[in-house]
């Protein structure tokens, strides 16, 4: 279906004097052969060349050396350009930037219209495509009123209406919440299984890649590994070296194996992708009568002083219009000084609205937000200092960078506070080092930094105001596994070293469970659950009803209990799960 031999590609960059600067090739001799009906996942850290390769499959880029054939057409052959693009459709990462029309069905019709297809036939294809992605009920909707997952399904329908043999998806789920991710992946799987469409999926989510027939791992413009998910993930050390992870279950088994090796016991099979398989492997080897390990209950630190108190907070969007929507419904909660709080809830649960109240960006319809006992909305003149004390890092904060240099950008906050230059400079330096950026970036343009660095610079911009409370809205969204780990580690260190209260909003239950002291679950504008991770994640069924889940390790222990083992509650990380399982094997 798609074949590439010896693909080499270089991005040309022009230096300031106009001469063409040569840099490292983005693709450096790629040989790849994707069969009809195959589902291939492409993994690789940021900058590994995945997207560049994908663009070659659609003739958006042409190889400098080597050749690419799609459905038998050479992409270099200008005469067959439209054949190539029609046979290999492409779905991009940002749902907003690939929908052209103001009505869903018009957008789906865009491709066939460009191909010059008869209007009646277009109508038929649009209906078919919308049915295939289960969006037929929204055919007359405006795209900006759809959720992220729905928009991506419209984009897939837009490609389907061109009747492609192959769909290339370039990180289609990176900007979606878990529900949206599931919608998109389920749709893609169905198209592959039922319609026989070849799928090439680029992703940073290992659990998605595990569903593919084959995984191709890229690094520095080359193919570093290739094989079935079981083969590829059974080399966890290699994956780590390539800046990637394995699915949680694979990681767990490899951690158990490290221990088994120390005890010179036979290892568990490593080609494991799901927790069910892991449990099966353990069950097969468990010593009769052995009982699982206990874990020392974590004592949450005692904290007494309230820093933020929220009292009967209600907020309604577009009050008094046809679009009226209650976002917060009589919420009351307290946040203690020094706490590390996690907020979870699916899109539309009210969590973003809630955190924006905490630093006085939105005024409540009724109710109060108190910061150290002072009503944050009482005095307009004091709001600026309140916003400085409660730092808010928005989603994709790198989109707010605007200055000529990183230093100036980070200095924006402290300068607005009217501090003297020397103090601003000191704060900027401290903030940059707190996010793990060196002084060498100070004079660089923020737009020359890598994705992860940009995000850290943007976080530093908030940190430089030296807030008492730091709120982060999905700080890891869209990053590759290595970038995710780095940011989380920095946040943990900030909480530990700077003695601040941290509120982390995240879609990743593993992230939340591993880091926070207390979890707040938002659902339909209310606080549905609150408590330590142990308490909250024991309500698996309630969480699932809200479109959420517990960490995978918790499910594993749940299943162990179902099988009659006395596995403890409150196990969220693969390390903890390993300690629970080891006594069964050794």
């Amino acid at each position, binding site marked *: 279906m798609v074949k590439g031999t010896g693909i080499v590609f270089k991005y040309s960059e022009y230096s300031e004097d106009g001469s063409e600067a040569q840099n490292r090739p983005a693709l450096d001799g790629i040989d790849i052969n994707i069969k009809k009906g195959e589902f291939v996942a492409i993994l690789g850290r940021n900058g590994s060349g995945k997207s560049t390769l994908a*663009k070659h499959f659609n003739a*958006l880029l042409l190889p400098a050396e080597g050749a690419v054939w799609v459905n038998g057409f050479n992409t270099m052959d200008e005469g067959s350009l*439209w054949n190539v*693009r*029609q046979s290999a*459709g*492409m779905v*991009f990462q*940002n749902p*907003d*930037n*690939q*929908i*052209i*029309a*103001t*009505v869903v069905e*018009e957008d789906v019709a*865009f*491709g*066939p*219209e*460009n*191909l*010059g297809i*008869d*209007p009646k036939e*277009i*109508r038929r294809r*649009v209906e078919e495509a919308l049915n295939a992605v289960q969006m037929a009920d929204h055919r*007359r909707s*405006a795209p*900006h*009123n759809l959720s992220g997952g729905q928009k991506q399904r419209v984009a897939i329908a837009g*490609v389907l209406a*061109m009747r492609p043999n192959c769909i290339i998806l370039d990180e289609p789920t990176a900007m979606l919440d878990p529900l949206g991710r599931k919608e998109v992946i389920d749709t893609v799987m169905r198209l592959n299984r039922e319609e026989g469409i070849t799928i090439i999926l680029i992703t940073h989510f290992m659990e998605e890649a595990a569903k593919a027939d084959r995984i191709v791992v890229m690094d520095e413009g080359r193919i570093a590994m290739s094989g079935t998910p079981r083969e590829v993930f059974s080399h966890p050390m290699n994956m780590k070296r390539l800046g990637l992870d394995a699915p949680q279950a694979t990681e767990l088994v490899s951690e158990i194996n490290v221990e088994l090796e120390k005890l010179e016991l036979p290892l568990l099979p490593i080609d494991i992708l799901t927790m069910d398989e892991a449990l099966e492997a353990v069950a097969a080897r468990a010593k009769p009568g052995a009982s699982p390990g206990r874990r020392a209950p974590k004592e949450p630190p005692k904290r007494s002083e309230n820093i933020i108190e929220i009292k009967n907070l209600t907020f309604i*969007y577009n009050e008094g219009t046809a*679009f009226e929507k209650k976002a917060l419904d009589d919420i009351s909660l307290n946040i203690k000084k020094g706490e590390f709080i996690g907020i979870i809830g699916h899109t539309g649960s009210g969590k973003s609205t809630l955190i*924006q109240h905490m*630093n006085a*960006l939105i005024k409540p319809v009724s109710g109060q937000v108190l910061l150290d006992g002072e009503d944050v909305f009482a005095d307009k003149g004091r709001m*600026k200092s309140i*916003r*400085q004390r409660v*730092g*808010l890092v*928005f989603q994709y*904060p790198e*989109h*707010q*960078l*605007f200055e000529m240099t990183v230093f100036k950008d980070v200095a*924006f*906050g402290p300068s*607005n*506070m009217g501090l003297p230059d020397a103090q601003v400079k000191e704060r900027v330096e401290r903030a940059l080092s707190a996010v793990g950026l060196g002084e060498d970036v100070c004079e660089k343009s923020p*737009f020359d930094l890598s994705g992860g660095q940009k995000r850290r610079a943007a976080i530093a*911009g*908030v940190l430089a*105001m030296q807030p008492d409370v730091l709120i982060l809205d999905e700080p890891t969204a869209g990053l590759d596994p290595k970038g995710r780990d780095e940011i989380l580690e920095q946040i943990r260190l900030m909480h530990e070293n700077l003695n601040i209260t941290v509120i982390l909003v995240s879609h990743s239950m593993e992230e939340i469970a591993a880091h926070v002291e207390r979890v707040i679950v938002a659902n339909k504008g209310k606080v549905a659950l609150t408590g330590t991770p142990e308490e909250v994640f024991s309500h698996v069924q309630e969480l699932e009803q809200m479109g959420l889940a517990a960490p995978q390790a918790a499910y594993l222990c749940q299943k162990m209990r179902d099988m009659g083992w006395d596995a403890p509650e409150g196990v969220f990380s693969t390390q903890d799960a390993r300690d629970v399982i080891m006594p069964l094997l050794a």
Partner: protein
Amino acid sequence: MITNIAIGQYYPAESPIHAMDPRVKLIGVIMYISALFMISGIAGYAFIILSIGALIRLSRVPFRFMLKGLRGIMFIMLFTVVLNIFFTPGEKLILQFYFIRITQEGLILAFKMGLRLALLIIGSSLLTLTTSPIELTDALEQLMKPLKRLGVPAHEIAMMMTIALRFIPTLVEEMDKIMKAQTARGADFDTGGIVKKARSLIPLLVPLFISSFRRADELALAMEARCYRGDVNRTRMKELKLSRLDMKAIGFMSLFAAMIAAIRIFLG
């Protein structure tokens, strides 16, 4: 948050007005606006009010939606009315207060001007309320087609309008977000003189520009990937075809034009 804004404020309903070919509607509105500026007597206004009233009933769009459009230009209307009241020279003095003279002629002219503006807005609202933006751009593209021979890029203009319409809500949302983010960093968009206010827009506009460029780049790529190549060999899912209904509408429009002409000639 400023999401959920209705662009073009299309009001979906099943009505003959909604079902009409947008090209016919567009020409109709142009005729209606010309008529507004041709008449001046009471008979003319009465005829136009009657006609538009009938059309509004036919369209099944609640009248308050038309008034919404008026709210937006309230200031301009007031301004015109006040200007006409105070500055129309006339004989029949009603009130004099130092240099302010209010005359009967002034009052009548002000009333007419206000009415004319209101009718203008109501008429064009009727078009935008019953025609989706995409239909409107299609109609424009079709009507501009003859100009293509003169080198007017009709297709490109229509495509640009579609994309602009599509991205207004997205960019409004984005601006709202960046504004909040910079406010959270102590930016102040409200106070200070003009220079300070203009300067305070930099942290808002630079990210907005950068993101728009990024969006444009990605959108171009997505369009290319979906085989877009301009107006070459392109078909449309929804073809504009004149139906029986449109023929009727054209008939009514001709009668309307004839009536306006007659009123203008015989009644002034």
